[in-house]
């Protein structure tokens, strides 16, 4: 069985109903720089990692579990991710 190696790119965002003072502060800084046409600024985080597994499905299931249990707090955050196969180093 050939192992699957994939890079996961994970986006973590505050849930829409959660106040995001960091995003609001960034948004308030923009008009002074000439960008008064920006709204809805929200700041999250991006995580990358490489997983080796048996199949893309198994890797996807594991990344999903890693997001739920460690990489995000489901009370206040949502997440999405993409997977891209990568060659052996």
């Amino acid at each position, binding site marked *: 069985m050939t192992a699957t190696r994939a890079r996961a790119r994970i986006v973590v965002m505050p849930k829409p109903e959660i*106040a995001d*003072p960091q995003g609001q*502060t960034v948004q308030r800084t923009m008009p002074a720089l000439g960008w008064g046409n920006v709204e809805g600024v929200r700041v999250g985080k991006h995580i990358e990692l490489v997983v080796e597994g048996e199949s893309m499905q198994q890797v996807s299931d594991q990344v999903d579990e890693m997001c739920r249990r*460690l990489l995000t*707090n489901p*009370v*206040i955050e949502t997440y999405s991710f993409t997977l891209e196969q990568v060659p052996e180093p």
Partner: protein
Amino acid sequence: MRPNVGVIVFPGSNCEQDVVHALRLEGADAGLLWHGDESLEGVDAVVLPGGFAHGDYLRTGAMARFSPVMRSVEAFARDGGAVLGICNGFQILAEAGLVPGALTRNAGLRFLCEWAEVVIEDISTPFTGACASGQRLRIPINHYEGNYVPPAGAEPRVVFRYVDNPNGSWRSVAGVASEAGNVMGLMPHPERACEDWLGSEDGRLIFASLVQSVSSRAAG
């Protein structure tokens, strides 16, 4: 018989010595428990102190909740043992799901290091049994992520509320307990209000309640 309280030390905890001091003032035996050791060494109660466990990396308390000692803390809590989380300790308990909700960045995006007045709303927990309902305590806060968010669709058991909400917490919540009441987290630092020369002795009531509660459990 003097109750024995274990105070957990994570890499980055910094309030454990003050908590030990405050517990000893109330007549308890108190000692430190390293996060990497699973054993609680037969303690009668557990305190998770303030600080910056794992540098608050990823999210505050996110990795500390998976420390070996936490497996025992979770079992201890399930069996009804008294577990108190102060500041970073509250954040760790919330990440572990031992108290409901989450702690997020202060609404004003300022690190708050100041006195706070809290009102006690629930005197039926092991940590507030020696208090009066509606009693006010003057205790310092020292945090950047103290903004409490409740879990969706569930009313948490509120134990303390701020008189003047300093950080945007939902309904000015300063501390909550688990449904059963034996696990509690609060953001203010009662161990920093345990001597009159610190500016307030109001924090002593929380440790006195805990010692009283654990002593009567052992006797009963």
